[in-house]
């Protein structure tokens, strides 16, 4: 039972918006790797264009949060939800940016199939994508157990990044023919590593939203 019908509606809309933005970001990442594997350049172009929609969504959610703070002065669980939403959209937007950055590299690397030559990139892509998917899911369902598991998964992505670096060095030792592509792929790996970090942030804000603490330390 509630005595604040409009307020409840606005909080529900905020939750829906976050879900929607999460879906958009997830979709963008997924498409990114399909584009990479299939060398689908049209798809890569779509991802770059789609990033604007994600940016607009970030602004819309920020506006909704600020309006809620201004008009409803949320406290307790509501305050945690609104403030963590404000933080999480920044991470989601950055994940979207990196998907777009990778899409631009796909267009540059065009033609040369070194993707599978740098052996650990596909594994890294899968791990990062899974982290994003699960972190968004954890945030939306407010599941801190899942969130904590995903935070640990970041170590896997970081290890894979080191392996990609080794892959690239090995490749360059064998031949200097693909120097450009190798550097671009190293950048792809760096973006994936950053995506993993942003997914960890989403998990940390899940913890805050649920408990008021960040890494077990209460903020207020």
């Amino acid at each position: 039972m509630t005595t604040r019908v409009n307020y409840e509606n606005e909080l529900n809309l905020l939750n829906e918006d976050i879900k929607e933005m999460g879906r958009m970001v997830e979709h963008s990442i997924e498409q990114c790797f399909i584009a990479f594997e299939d060398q689908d350049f049209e798809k890569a172009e779509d991802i770059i264009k789609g990033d604007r929609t994600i940016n607009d969504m970030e602004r819309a959610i920020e506006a909704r949060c600020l309006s809620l703070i201004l008009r409803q002065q949320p406290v307790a669980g509501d305050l945690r939800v609104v403030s963590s939403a404000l933080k999480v959209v920044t991470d989601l937007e950055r994940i979207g940016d990196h998907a777009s950055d990778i899409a631009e590299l796909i267009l540059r690397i065009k033609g040369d199939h070194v993707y599978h030559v740098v052996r650990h990139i596909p594994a890294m892509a899968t791990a990062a994508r899974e982290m994003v998917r699960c972190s968004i899911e954890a945030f939306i369902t407010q599941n801190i157990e899942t969130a904590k598991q995903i935070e640990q998964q970041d170590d896997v992505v970081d290890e894979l990044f080191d392996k990609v670096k080794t892959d690239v060095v090995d490749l360059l030792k064998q031949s200097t023919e693909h120097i450009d592509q190798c550097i671009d792929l190293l950048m792809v790996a760096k973006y994936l590593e950053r995506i993993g970090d942003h997914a960890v942030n989403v998990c940390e804000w899940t913890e805050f939203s649920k408990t008021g603490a960040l890494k077990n330390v209460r903020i207020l």
Partner: protein
Amino acid sequence: MNTNTVKISSSNLNLYYGTNHALKDVNLELYTNKITAFIGPSGCGKSTYLKTLNRMNDLVPNVKIEGEVLLDGENIYDQRVDTTLLRKKIGMVFQQPNPFPMSIYDNVAYGPRIHGIKHKAELDDIVEKSLKGAALWDEVSSRLKKSALGLSGGQQQRLCIARALAVEPEVLLMDEPTSALDPISTLKIEDLMDELKEKYTVAIVTHNMQQATRIADHTAFFLVGEVVEYAPTTELFTVPKDKRTEDYITGRFG
């Protein structure tokens, strides 16, 4: 700075108005030089509790009080306690500004005169110090002999605070002190409270939860005569432990 010294504590405090059990086993500690806010829906016992802290409820017919309230470790309900002296130590400010129908000066000098101060120079000093303490001096220093009833609501309330300060209390109890005031007067009183807590221990009953978050160091949530939750204000308003607290402060209380 973070150490809390207990100024007032109540233990197993029960209060009955006839058969109405209005306070149930209230255990609370108010800390020296801190502001403690009491929040809760109408009839929850928060004002009743405030009034037990300087025995204002003694005046209510058919009231029965059990348990104890300690001020600096001494039970204020002890038979030997002189309630006039107790209320000098623990002053009170009410919801409606209630200046006496006399001059601004005489309002503030009223308490000290009752407690035996007669010398004009000494009274002048007390009046000036108290009005300054209540952030009213600059507005009224040129018209101290004018009637207090000519002041605005916000000024009248600050005059009542000055009147309370004039007898040099240790604790100030405030029962919704700004609910009859406009927003600017309210903010002035809130700023004033922040200054007052440097010298006094303050307890405030408020229906305005934003006010509690703005000014109080600790907040107690009352519900049907019980303290449901008592915590540092930032904690209570970000991570309340009890679902009833969460429901009340977020407005989900039917």
